[in-house]
């Protein structure tokens, strides 16, 4: 397992940090979060054209850059830090990873290059209104119709589901669970943006009425690649979350240093110093777990399922607790709309739950370790 970043990786991180400082200030985050789409196609193209981020972990054979989950983790950590409003987690992380894991060779060659170059924004529709993160919650049906399939049912909590060009759908047929691909504008598909607590990451409800779909990968063969995708995605999300947590921690420290009460900087009060020290411990420990998970994903470590769940559980707790503490340190101003803290607080809340909360992942970790 890798416990430090190479100098190239450190350099990559500092380039990203400068780029996102420039392209995703909170004025931009606030502008985009008020839109229905939640992201801007021109800015998305820039993300891809200047830095090739949409291609980062997609293999070179399919038009990607062929980097590992460690580099993807760095991108996500920096995006989480800057709260970048873009369909990156949906398209690059969830959809592309599913296609890599499940698709046939021909399908990877057909689908991945467009995701890699950013011209196609894809997403993965796996959860349903029952809110379950495992395959047991999948009720959507797939029925054979000649060479194609027809999908019926409802998907929910689909990241960027109302704006994606391509939707990868998990559904149940005669032979069990299969993945399918559906164009975003397919006839019979009704897409509705959900009112989400975290407006920087949009979600949609997708209703399928006899929607024509292409099989992705093997019929009835989705369970294993889905499991693998969820594990890798949990490792990815943990890295995104610790980026946000660190940004919050730093903003709380900046504010404490600035604020004067009782004739002295509030940062000189021991209650504040101890709180900040505890926040640092919590964030650094969660970062270590997230980095371990990214490294385990890159090496395809047999212990990855446990480590990814551990990292997601740690990040869920640490991000949320850091958000709560950051608001507390800001006092009244921290509860206002004008102060930026709530933007990260809401991302912390939605990420805490998305892909399974800490309790759910702790149980998965225990199973992975055969306890």
């Amino acid at each position, binding site marked *: 397992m890798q416990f430090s970043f190479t100098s190239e990786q450190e350099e990559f991180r500092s380039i990203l940090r400068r780029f996102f400082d420039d392209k995703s200030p909170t004025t931009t985050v606030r502008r985009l979060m008020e839109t229905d789409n939640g992201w801007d196609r021109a800015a998305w193209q820039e993300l891809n054209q200047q830095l090739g981020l949409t291609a980062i972990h997609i293999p070179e054979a399919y038009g990607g850059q062929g980097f590992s989950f460690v580099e993807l983790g760095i991108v996500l950590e920096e995006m989480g830090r800057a709260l970048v409003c873009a369909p990156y987690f949906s398209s690059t992380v969830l959809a592309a990873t599913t296609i890599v894991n499940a698709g046939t060779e021909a399908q990877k060659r057909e689908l991945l290059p467009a995701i890699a170059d950013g011209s196609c924004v894809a997403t993965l529709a796996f959860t349903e209104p029952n809110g379950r993160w495992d395959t047991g919650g999948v009720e959507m049906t797939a029925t054979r119709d000649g060479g194609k399939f027809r999908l019926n049912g409802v998907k929910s909590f689909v990241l960027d589901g109302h704006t994606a060009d391509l939707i990868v759908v998990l559904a149940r047929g005669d032979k069990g669970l299969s993945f399918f691909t559906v164009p975003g504008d397919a006839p019979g598909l009704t897409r509705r943006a959900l009112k989400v607590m975290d407006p920087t990451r949009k979600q949609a409800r997708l209703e399928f009425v006899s929607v024509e779909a292409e099989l992705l990968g093997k019929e009835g063969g989705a369970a294993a690649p889905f499991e693998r995708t969820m594990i890798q995605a949990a490792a990815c999300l943990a890295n995104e979350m610790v980026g946000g947590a660190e940004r919050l921690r730093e903003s709380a420290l900046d504010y404490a240093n600035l604020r004067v009460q009782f004739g002295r900087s509030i940062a000189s009060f021991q209650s504040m110093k*101890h709180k900040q020290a505890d926040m640092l411990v919590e964030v650094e420990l969660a970062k*270590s777990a997230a980095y371990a998970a990214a490294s385990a994903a890159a090496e395809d470590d047999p212990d990855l399922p446990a480590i990814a769940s551990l990292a997601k559980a740690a990040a869920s707790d640490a991000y949320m607790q850091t958000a709560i503490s950051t608001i507390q340190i800001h006092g009244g101003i921290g509860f206002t709309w004008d102060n930026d803290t709530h933007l990260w607080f809401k991302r912390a809340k939605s990420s805490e739950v998305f892909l399974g909360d800490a309790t759910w992942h702790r149980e998965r970790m225990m199973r992975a370790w055969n306890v």
Partner: protein
Amino acid sequence: MNEDTVRAEVRAWLEANWRVDYGLVEWRNILIDSGWGVPTWPVDWYGKGLPAGLAAVVDEEFARVGAVGVAKAGIRRLAAATLLAHGTPAQKEQFLRRSLTGEDSWCQLFSEPGSGSDLAGATTRAERKGNRWVVNGQKVWTTSAHHADWGLLLARTDFDVAKHQGLSYFIINMHQTGVDVHPLRQMNGHASFNQVFLTDAEVLPEHLVLDVGRGWAVATTTLMHERREADGVRNWGRTSAGVGRIYDEERAENATVMEPYKWYPQRAGRVDLVIERAKAAGVNGDPVVRQEIAKLLTLSKSAEWTARRARAAQMQGKPQGPEGSLGKLASSHVARAAARVHTMIGGADAMLTGEDGAMGGVIAEILVSVPAGSIAGGTDEIQRNIISERVLGMPKEPRTDNDRPFRDVPKNLVG
């Protein structure tokens, strides 16, 4: 010198000189003369002047052939490092070699009943009377004082200057009538530490380290080495299973020095026992227990990975990041969480101890030893001060003890 030349040189030297039939002290004298015993020390004082990064290479070569090193365990290492930095040539001559051979053992007389976290508040008094320093006061938490030959003593030589300016640092002979050592029984039943009563105890003038009034600077050196070697306690106990006179002598030395530390694994919480204990108790299927175990494992794994990040950065010569300062506080959290989980798993048995307790009392020992980890070597609160001030750059609290003669600073009634 680079890694390869160091490796080749130490390997050749060991091949020519290392034998298991030496006596321990005899061998260590040979080793000290060669410079390979303390290779990072200066050439003038038993070393080779190697950078710290290359010391690991020397250790590896010693381990490869099972060669015994200089005496490492206990306070003697801190004494040697402190005297190397601040001692007079005569002090170095008198003490360094005998500390490295293990002939002299040491203790650290810093903490007092009235000054724990605030070490610089020491009130033990050293007064110059004729050709002697005469010491009166009380020290506490003194590991190994009962068999130490020498003590590192922090004492106040001037009550009329500011707190940190009135301290001096001495080497005191522990074998004298004015030094009275009493074991201090802890809540876990062990007596790893001592109280040391100093009543007109005498110190020779040539055993003052650095100058009168500069004791705090010397003590800071000792404490820095103590923090740096905090991990060392775990390694000290490792004794070779080798056969031969020298190994027997080393094992006997270790048994004495390590005696006070035998409950330290329990103090750290024994996370390693949790899963087997849960299975043995048949509670590993209980969802609440599973959650608590998982929280503990998440914490302890994350802490372990954080330590490895810090080590990896150190090996690469990168400046230390925040991850390097969190270990002590993180291990307190781990230990407390482990004690909670062990209690949960133990159920009613957690009320029992000794041979009636789980695992012959080991679990009970965990439960009553864990509180020490949050106190010894810098309390959790002091760690948080250090982290917030040195890592996060937050301001110190306003102080009321530095701007006046120490005599006028409020003190505890004890000490």
